[in-house]
């Protein structure tokens, strides 16, 4: 390989390096090359924005309060105790004591007023804290849902019993293509592209075909680019799928296929 070719290969590796997709040996070789190649270093830096996005673009969750305590409290200095040294004083004669009582009474009245104000303030704080908590709860719900959806997809794709089924186009949609990943334990991830919108009043239904009968995985509709990406939970006790198919069916789906076939594929 000429130096020029080697450099071209490294330049292509920059993106893979940025998302840590290189195995150890290739990673070390790229790092070695990086030391002497400003062009590759520049290319790598251009992916900083993508890496930051992948790091920060995940659903944001609030950690538990106890975590902050574990991290911060152990290192924070204990707050300084108020200086009590001077509060021990000498109360001598009677009139001084009477004056002190008077001062204490005035002080107490002022103190009560302050307390009332504080309580009003605290009530307001509590109200706004409850509002914030409610908002945080709602954000968390949305985030949890979104995490769950992507977790389900990934869980299928890293399942040890993963099986892949490719689906080919049928006459009603000659451009369409589909692929499914199925794990008995974790369910079905189905993707398809170039599907036309289903006929009015109808929906696409995805079928897992077993030796005995077709089982409905569920219904799905393509987006405006004709793409479907869907996760379906499938019962763990179904027989091994021998094929998959996509048909159009009445809105809401039907127990066994009746409509036109759009995609069909046999298990490998």
């Amino acid at each position, binding site marked *: 390989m000429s130096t020029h070719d080697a450099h071209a290969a490294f330049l*292509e590796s920059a*993106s*893979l390096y*940025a*998302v*840590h*997709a*290189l*195995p150890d040996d290739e990673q070390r070789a790229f790092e070695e090359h990086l030391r002497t190649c400003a062009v590759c270093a520049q290319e790598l830096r*251009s*992916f*900083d*924005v*993508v*890496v930051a*996005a*992948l*790091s*920060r*673009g*995940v*659903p*944001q*969750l*609030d*950690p*538990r*309060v*106890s*975590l*902050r305590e*574990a*991290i*911060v409290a152990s*290192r*924070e*200095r204990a707050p300084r105790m108020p200086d009590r040294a001077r509060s021990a004083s000498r109360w001598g004669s009677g009139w001084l004591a009477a004056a002190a009582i008077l001062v204490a009474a005035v002080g107490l009245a002022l103190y009560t007023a302050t307390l009332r104000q504080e309580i009003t303030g605290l009530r307001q704080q509590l109200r706004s804290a409850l509002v*914030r*908590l409610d*908002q*945080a*709860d709602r*954000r*968390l*719900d949305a985030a*949890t849902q*979104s*995490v769950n959806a*992507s*977790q389900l*997809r*990934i869980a299928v*794709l*890293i399942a040890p019993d*993963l099986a*892949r089924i490719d689906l080919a186009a049928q006459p009603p949609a000659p451009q369409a293509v589909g*692929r499914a990943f199925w794990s008995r334990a974790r369910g079905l991830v189905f*993707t398809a592209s170039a599907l036309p919108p289903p006929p009015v009043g109808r929906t696409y239904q995805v079928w897992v075909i077993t030796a005995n009968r077709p089982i409905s995985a569920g219904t799905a509709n393509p987006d405006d680019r004709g*793409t479907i*990406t869907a996760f379906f939970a499938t019962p763990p006790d179904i027989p091994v799928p021998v094929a998959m198919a996509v048909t159009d069916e009445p809105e809401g789906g039907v127990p066994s296929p009746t409509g036109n076939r759009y995609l069909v594929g046999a298990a490998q």
Partner: protein
Amino acid sequence: MWLFWAVIDVTADADQSAVVRMAAGDQAALAEFYDRHGRAVYSLAFRILRDQRDAEEVVQDVFAQAWRESARYNTRRGSVMAWLMTLTRSRAVDRLRGRRSRPENALAADPRAEITDAAALADEQLAWSVRADRVRAALDALPVLQRVAIELAFYEGLTHAEIAARLEEPLGTVKTRIRQGLLKLRERLADS
């Protein structure tokens, strides 16, 4: 978008100053630093590990390391945030790899089980949530196999060869998918 960049600039300055103060042993700076980034670190760790307890341990490790290494951190090297995120990803993926060799855990604990700490700066959270939505939209717009390959590398810690084996596809195809996906993301994120 000006609000977002304004907030990021302010945050970057505050980060540099917090790290300098942490290096000098100022514990209040660590508290400030955690309040600013604890949520992002926890969220990334949780995304990778899908387990509350594991994610919490990673967050503790990351802030302990940030505290220890603050003195060695060179403020001209790059953004503190990028440093923190790289640290978080690598700690979380290491833990994930360790876990993969053991039997799978029971389902992750419900993150709503306890009252959460919503004390981080509201403006900053708002700016980041705007950004996170945009990032997710950019990711969602990728062809699904490009996206899955990128996710398997970044969040699952798999190499290109492992991804190819997993998806039963040729290595060259997988490399191309990752690269094309990342180029598209770079373009879309630079546009907006």
